[in-house]
């Protein structure tokens, strides 16, 4: 039997797990006032999170 393929979501999940600090910072920014969330409210935190994720997923 062929080895089981790694699903994209698993790779995604592993890469995201390496960015817990950035994810927490982003989460805190949203949760600080979640009744008035608008587009790009936490864009700076998100860019940091995404950069981290992109770096982690390339390794």
């Amino acid at each position, binding site marked *: 039997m062929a080895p089981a393929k790694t699903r994209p*979501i698993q790779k995604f999940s592993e890469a*995201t797990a390496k960015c817990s600090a950035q994810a*927490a910072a*982003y*989460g805190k920014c*949203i949760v600080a006032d979640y009744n008035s*969330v608008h587009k790009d409210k936490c864009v700076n935190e998100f860019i940091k999170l*995404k950069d981290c994720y992109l770096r982690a997923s390339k390794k």
Partner: protein
Amino acid sequence: MSGCARSLFPAGRCLSSSRQLPISTFNRRAFAVQSGGAPRFQVFNRRTKWLQKERTALNPEESRVADYLKDEVASRLTERLLRRAVAVKKLTNRLTRQDIKRHFPKVLDLGANSCNIARALVRKNPDPDPDLPASPPLVTRISELVAADSSEGLLYRDADHDFNKQINIIRQVLDDEESLPFEPNSFDLVMSSLSLHWINDLPGVLTQINSILKEDCPFIGAMLGGDTLFELRTSLQLAEQERRGGISPHVSPLADVKDVGGLLQKAGFKMLTVDIDDIIVDYPDSFALMQDLQAMGEGNAILGREMGPISRDVLLASEGIYRELHGNPDGSIPATFRIIYMIGWRESATQIKPLARGSGDINLKDILEQK
């Protein structure tokens, strides 16, 4: 004005009268009646749901692993066949076991998924109690179980497992779970576990269940409702709101506990019991939760949802929010499944009925004060 509004004259005739009404408020309909042949309110795409179930059945290993919720709910649901015995025991402090002496010749499991109810029925010693000897499996009180589901793959997934030999089970693939192909008065018990929350026309299906039951026979059902997956719902909403500036439905609208009693009553059931149970499952991250939901065949099937996968940006954002807003101290994340259990009995002349109002001759206050 009222005479005009109520009259059955055509609109033009009425408008020519002395007092004119603006057209927009002009309404000649006296009663709110649904016109014949009107489409039912559609929320879920039944075909998508069918496809999702068939797909999970293609990967039986993963699907079996993700059956933990359905197996747990099925066993809690079948426990309700014992429930009355337990209550009586507590009251009288006597060993009365299996007070429902009733035997169920023909039982329907509507929306059987992978026959989780059948598996729960053959469990050994379903009522573990150190004071009592082991009780026989519930299946001894059932002659025939009809397991019906629209997904053939999922229904037959475990058809070669051992539990099939211990129970007289007939699998029946339904074309559509919303129109039941059974004769009226043909079942002694109808059960349904974690399927009703995908039904578009819940009042209609409950009415059909009521009619296929024999007189004085129960329907016992469990469905997801209320605050189920509120953590996932809120984090995806916040993430989409922040990343994309708008939201699309990802978690189904669900019936609330307070609606279910009314629904059962409307369908003609008597002696209702509705209760809820929260099952909270911890996951390592929100992706594990989503993968498991998919493997359960419980993916999103709302009509009018955004097609295609959720974008990675939103997934990334929602993971951070989920953990921050709802996460456990140990780093895992909780997911709440609120199960609504309902029991209703088909009406019968021999059933106990509430006495007429004002017919009581004992004052409850006296009894309570004596205590």
